[in-house]
């Protein structure tokens, strides 16, 4: 039985990964790379900023960057994703 949706934590990872791959990224880029509609992405971006995983550029609040905490989250996600995939499961 395969789940037809992504888990919240995987969506966080996809967003952070999209921003990391660009260095800094705007909403339209993240929408495309993380495959999310605007309204849902806005909600997740607020959550990620509130959790300190994502930061807004000081001079341009529409530009996002991944914080040190966010980088650690991405690294942990990749490590534990490999672990769970060894069991044939997914996060």
């Amino acid at each position, binding site marked *: *039985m*395969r*789940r037809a949706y992504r*888990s*919240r*934590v995987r969506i966080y990872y996809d967003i952070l990964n999209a921003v990391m791959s660009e260095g800094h990224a705007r909403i339209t880029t993240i929408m495309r790379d993380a495959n999310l509609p605007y309204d849902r992405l806005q909600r997740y971006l607020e959550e990620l900023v509130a959790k300190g995983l994502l930061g807004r550029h000081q001079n341009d609040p529409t530009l996002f960057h991944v914080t040190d905490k966010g980088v650690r*989250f991405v690294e*942990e*996600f*990749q*490590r*534990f994703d*490999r*672990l*769970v*995939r*060894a*069991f*044939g*499961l*997914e*996060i």
Partner: protein
Amino acid sequence: MIGILFSVIRIDVVLELISFAICAFISLSFLRAHLNLGSRVFAMLSAGFGLMGGAMLVRALIVGASLFGFFGRDLSRTLMPYLFQVELLYSFVRLTAYLLFVLAYVLYQAPRAPTELAVVPPPVLLIYNPAFELMSVVLLAYVVAASTGNWKRTNSKGSGSVALGFWALLASHLLFALTPLNFILYFAGHAVQLLSLLLILFGALEAMRG
């Protein structure tokens, strides 16, 4: 003769304590993953291995205390009448752990190729010993099929070790079930159970190392 037999029986307590330590390590690794990422699949695996390990620890300590007087003769006499209940609780907790593994595979199985046949969950029945061993085999058969399918797809060393670990865990329950044929199979079952956990531990460490 009985003295020799009892000195041999201690081996199962030792093997079970080692298995507990491995289960605890695997469980804590998954707990750490759950606390860092908040994903339920890690919580299920952590709880599954934690329950397995907890059941092993309690059983090893109580059997050790009651049969071999690990903690004094008074406690041994007090615990002896409750050995049957301990075995019942042990079986129930182990089955609960396997049900959690099955649930994790039902809910969080990685995507398969569309042509591949889906593994159908087995009917869930909770039956007490000696059916516990056979019930464990039925539940683990699902986990074995899913993890072996994953190994075939990924062909990685980590997933291979995990799949072999679940195969060995299933084999250990078959050996426990065949104990009436030859008592040595009981110890073989414990040895294979320990091997299974070592394989799962190796697979987990291999996968995390990348």
